[in-house]
Structure formats: C-alpha cells, structure tokens
C-alpha cells in the first residue's frame, strides 16, 4: 500500500481539522487531519483515553464533531444521520441482538433496506459461510463462544456490503490465540472484499500485523501516521518510540550536529553517535532510543563504525527463542539487550562486565519529554 496516498486530500475518508469536546472545556480530539484511501486498512492505535473511540464515533455518526469536517467519498457527512451513512461497524462487545438468532441478526440490516426474503436468505448464508459459521444460523448469540460471536458481529457488519467498516477493539475480549487467528481472518476478508477499514486498538502487535497504515494517537493528536515497518523502525518522536515495541532510552545533551549524525553526551558523561530525528540545535536535551534487538555484544557482528560502550550484566533471562539480558549502561539500569538463541550465542553471567554496541543509525536522538 502506498504510504503517500494516505496523505492525499482526495482520500475515501477524510478528517479535515476535526476537533471534539464533550464538556466545552477540554478538547478530546485536537485538530485531527487524516485521510484514508479506498481499500486501505488503517489502524488507530493509542493509549486508553487518547480519543480513538471518539474519532470512530464521529465517523459513524454517533458523536458530532465540535468543529472541522469529515468527508466520506468526497462528501461532507456531518449532517447525515448514522443510519444513512451505510458504514458497517463492529463493536467491542459485539452488540449482537440477544433476542434474535444469528440468522435474524444478519438479516436485520437487509430487512431494513427492504430486501426480499429469498435474497436476504442467500446473502445471510453467504456472509455466514464467509466467516465459517454457516451451521450456526439458528443459534442465539448467548449460545456462542466469544470467538464465534466475534465472527457473527463481523459477518453482520459486512452482510450489507458497506464500502467502509469500522471496528472498535473488536478482539479485546478474546484470548491470545483466538485473537491472532481473528486478526488474520479480518485482514484476509478486508483485502478480499476490497473494503476500507478503520480499526481501533490499543494492542500494538495487532496494529503492526494487520494494518496498511497506523495512526498513533496520544492526547487527542496523531503522533505519527505511517506503515507498520516505518513506525517501528523510524519512530518520529519519543512517545511513538516508547509506545511501539520495546525500547532502550537514555537521556543526554546534543553536543554536535553533522548532517545525518550527531554527537550526544549521555547523562553518565559518555559521548555517543546518534541519528538526529527530533533535535534541532546543539545544547538541546535529547532522549536517544535503541531497540533491544539492535544491541549487540559480539563485535564481529557489527560494522567497524559501530559504537561500543561498557556495560554491567545485571540479569540474564532465558526466554526460549531469545535471551534477554538486562544491563547497566551509562547509569541506566533498565537497558535491555535481546539476542537470538543461536548455538554460538553467549549467555552472559550477571555481574560480569561486557562491551556492547550498535550502529549509529539505529540510535535515534529524539525529543526529551518534560
């Protein structure tokens, strides 16, 4: 999926300077600009209370934007009531109607659209088969497991063939294995049917594995909008770096900036090279971040210009596929190194002093909060 396409203003779904306040005092959504291309799978990711659901509800029509405009297929929809928007929606608690059977639940959106009985039955069966639930049409939602209810909710949101489907933490209530399976099913369906999906979650793995683009929310703002790999490898600021995946951070001061490298003096006094991302001038405080899997204790695996630094091993954790070594680096006792469980991999003893290193471009100098 083309990253840049999402930034275009002629997207299928466009938030244009949207703000939202519930109480007239605080803005829950602050100046949201976002564009979702047709057929794109966009995930809104962010901590609890960051305004993800609010954004989704404004799109679905259950909340009104305090200011700004939301466009669907080029047309403003602020004044269109929810039932005329034709947007499929999957709720976190599924919201399957308990007094109707699975079949009736699915046929409901077709009925209110005035579809004839035989067409209805055909479409319902097709939608049920799509989620492999064809045998369950006569059950009540209460007689289904969580995962099955999830599928039915998905089928119901798709049965009337909407072009846009919204999902608000649809997998939150499922156990890990089922969740992973459903992640796969949802993305497969979304791509097969070519629907545009806006997906809300606060689970970063989910966001990374499912999406074409991820919008990281914090405090009513999008901190970064990018495809998963860019988001992971090139976080634009320290919030995104901390929020996505695991990260080692050390605070310091910028000493020198030379094009795409800079020198940072860590608070422990050590000087290191880093890639300037969110720093602009010398003397500024910065937070450098290094992914644990990019830290290496074996010099031979690093290029010549890799930066080496002394570290004390505090803890060694055997995790099966990887080893997790907690180190004390430049005064930071929570520095983690992740190494693959390879035959030649060293298992470091707690208390020993080792030398670790990383490539300067893997060490990103970001803004320093506070």
């Amino acid at each position, binding site marked *: 999926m083309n990253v840049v396409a999402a930034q275009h203003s002629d997207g299928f779904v466009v938030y244009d300077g949207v703000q939202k306040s519930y109480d007239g005092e605080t803005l829950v959504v602050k100046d949201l600009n976002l564009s979702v291309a047709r057929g794109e799978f966009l995930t809104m990711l962010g901590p609890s209370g960051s305004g993800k659901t609010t954004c989704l509800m404004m799109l679905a*029509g*259950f909340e009104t934007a305090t200011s700004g405009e939301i466009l669907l297929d080029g047309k403003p929809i602020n004044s269109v009531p929810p*039932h005329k928007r034709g947007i499929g929606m999957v709720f976190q*608690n599924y919201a399957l*109607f308990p007094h109707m059977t699975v079949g009736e639940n699915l046929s*409901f*959106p077709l009925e209110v659209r005035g579809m004839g009985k035989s067409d209805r039955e055909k479409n319902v069966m097709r939608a049920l088969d799509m989620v492999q639930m064809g045998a369950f049409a006569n059950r009540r939602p209460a007689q289904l497991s969580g995962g099955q209810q999830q599928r039915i909710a998905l089928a119901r949101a798709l049965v009337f063939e909407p072009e846009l489907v919204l999902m608000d933490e649809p997998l939150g209530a499922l156990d890990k294995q089922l969740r992973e399976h459903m992640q796969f099913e949802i993305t497969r369906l979304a791509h097969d049917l070519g629907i545009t999906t806006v997906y809300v979650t606060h689970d970063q793995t989910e966001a990374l594995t499912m999406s074409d683009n991820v919008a990281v929310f914090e405090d009513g703002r999008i901190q970064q909008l990018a495809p998963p790999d860019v988001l992971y490898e090139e976080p634009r600021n320290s919030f995104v770096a901390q929020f996505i995946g695991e990260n080692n951070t050390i605070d310091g001061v910028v000493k020198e900036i030379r094009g795409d490298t800079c020198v940072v003096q860590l608070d422990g006094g050590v000087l290191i090279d880093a890639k300037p991302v969110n720093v602009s001038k010398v003397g500024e405080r910065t937070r450098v971040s290094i992914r644990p899997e990019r830290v290496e204790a074996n010099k031979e695996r690093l290029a010549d210009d890799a930066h080496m630094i002394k570290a004390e091993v505090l803890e060694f954790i055997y995790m099966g596929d990887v080893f997790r070594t907690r180190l004390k680096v430049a005064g930071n006792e929570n520095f983690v190194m992740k190494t693959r469980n390879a035959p030649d991999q060293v298992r470091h003893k707690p208390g020993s002093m080792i030398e670790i290193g990383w490539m300067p471009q893997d060490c990103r100098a970001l803004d320093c909060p506070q």
Partner: protein
Amino acid sequence: MAIQSATSEEGAVGTATDSRGRLVTSDGTPLRRALERANRRRKLTALALVAPLLAFILIFFAFPIAQMMWRSVDNPQIVNALPRTLVALEDWNGQGVPDEPVFAALHADMMEDLDRPRREQAIGPLGIRLNYELSAARSAISRTARNVPDFDAPYRDAFTDAHRLWGQPELWQIIKREGRPLTLSYYVAALDREYDAEGNIVKRPENRQIYVSLFGRTLALSLAITAMTFLLGFPIAYYLSTLPMRYANLLMIAVLLPFWTSLLVRTSAWIVLLQQQGVINNALVGMGFINDDGRFSLIYNQTGTIIAMTHILLPFMVLPLYSVMRTIPPTYLRAAKSLGATPWTAFRRVYFPQTLPGIGAGGVLVFIISIGYYITPALVSGQSGRMISNEIARHIQQSLNWGLAAALGTMLLVGVLVLYWLYNRLVGTDSLKFG
C-alpha cells in the same frame, strides 16, 4: 522426591473403594456419607437463617389463608343447634310442612340449648346462618326462642303460632339442605346462583346478581390500570435509564413519592383536583373548553378509581422496567442504526423486545396488586368504581357474612393463581425481572 511420593499416595486414595465398590475417603468412610456429614452443618445454618421468616409467614400468611378457605365451606351452625331436628327431618320428603315429630325434636333442641351457658348457646349463630339464606329467619328464631319454655304439645301449632316462618316449607328445605358440616352455598351465592325449591342450582333474579359482574369489572379496571401504568411508566423508565445515576436517582424519588405520602393526604388532593367543582373542571371551564353544566365527573366513579390507582401503582411498573432498561447497553441501539435502521425501527425491533421481561414483571405486579386493591377504591370509587375487594370488606365488616366473604376471597385468590400460571406458561416466570 517428597512431593512425588505425596502425589502418588493421593492418587491411590482418590480411587480407593470399599468392599461394595463405593468410593471411600482416606479414613475409610464412604464418600457419600462424608459428603452428607459435611453438608449437614451448612443446611442447619441455612435453616436457622430462614426459620424466623418461615415461621412468620406460616403464622401470619399461610395459616390465615387456609383459615379463610376453610371458612368458605365450613357450616357448623345448623348441625350444632338442631341435631335432633335433623335426624327427624331425614324422613321428611321435602314437600309441605314437616309433621309433629320434627317440631317435637325442634322443641327439644331449643330447650336443651336454653339450658346451656349463654356463651355456648347455638341458637344465635343458627339465626345468623339461616338469615343468609332467608331474610327474617333470624328474627323468627330469636322471637321463638324466647317463648319456647312455654310451649306445650302439639308443638307444630305452637311454633307456627309463634312465627309464621315455621309454617313455610322454604325454611325447612334450607334447614335440611344446610344441615351438613360442609356447604357449597357460599360459592353458589358468590356466583350469583341460588337453590330453587327442588334443590337445583339456578341463576338469581337479574336484580340480585352482583358478584359476577363485579368480578368482571374488577378484571376490566385492573387491566385498564395496568395499561395506564405501562403507558405512563415506559417513557419515564426509558428516560431514567438514559440518565447518569446521579440524576436518575433524584428523579426516581419523584416516581416513588406516592409510596411516601399518606393515603389520606393523597385522597384529599385527588378530591380537590378531580371533583366537579375541583381544580381540573374549573380550569377547563375557565379556559372555555367545556361549559358549566358540561363538567366531567372524574371522581367517585370508575375514572376516579383508575386515576388514583394508576398513580399509586406506577412505581410497581417503573421499577422493574427501569432495572431491565438499565441493563440494555446503548450500543444495541447504535448497532441497529449503524446497520441502517431508522431510530424508530431500531427502537421497535431491537430495544423494545429486550424490555419485555420488565414489562411482564411490571404488568403482573400491577395487575395482581390492583385486582385485590381495597383502600383506594373504597375512598374514591363511589358506587360504579367499586371492586370485588370492597364487596369482600363489606361482608366482613357490615353484613358479617364471613362465609361469603371467604368464598369471594378464595375465588379471587384462585383467579390470580390461574392468571399467574397462564402467564408462566406463556412467557415463563424465570424471565421476570422484579426491580
């Protein structure tokens, strides 16, 4: 090592059986017995906890109801007062006035009764009992009883001279028919029937039929009241359920206000409001909607009963409705709308069906309470808004015909139970949600 041996030992105990193949615990007691012993203590505790209430219900609820049902068929008065007469009457063919032996027996019975201490005399109750079947019987008996010591044979003439009723076959038919320890005559009367001269059960004359139509009216009024509470209560409950708890509780107080106001205060308020010269009529006349002689009668009739009882019983509808509606998440309505339903369709197809348990509970509550309601109809109903319970109360307090009151009460009770059973068959009580 120690852990391992412990688990293997436990495994052996877990499958141990005695000679008869029953599971036993580690000390050799059969498992079932051990379980019973462990459970007995819990059961005793449970029993101790419910015992006071159980005793209370038995003494003040179950026992009086059983008593009432017994009274509706209990018929000791004639058997107690006239044992010899009843024996003598066995040979009587039911036609005309009985012969001298019957009157002689009657004399003997009455003489014996006069010798008893006053509190044990059976003549008084006899008069009351016969009076239910034949007015004037009571005065005939008490007048005769005074003169009985002076009677001489032939007694037949003496009695018929003392009161003309003794010469009427009707009285003797009643004595013979009701001279049994149990009777159905109260139920016969409660169903607007009576016995004819041949002892067949026939309809009463039109102008003396009251109870059946009163039952019908009670049913109709109760249905009307249930419908009114539903119509008024549903929107309130819905609104309350959408409010934050804080405001909902505050408004709930307004709904519960009828519970906390004295009945007399409320009644006077209704009278002030509803009477012909009352606030509502005056306002309507004042605004020119009706003219002065077109004033509505809103009280002392069925309208008054319905208005007042709807007011009183509204909370019984609102509370179960509210508690059910609170549990219906707003996401259902949102989901319905996102699927393309208009707000009205979403309400009708998705929201309303989920409130049915509450409607059922509220409806059953209001209906059953109003079918037996007494005090409000007594105060504001006038003649046309009276309900069956008012008639029962009249028989208990004024006419003192407790047998008839008991028969009416039993019929009411059975009616309610039948309705409840029907409801249970149709809807299922396990889906009821009372508050």
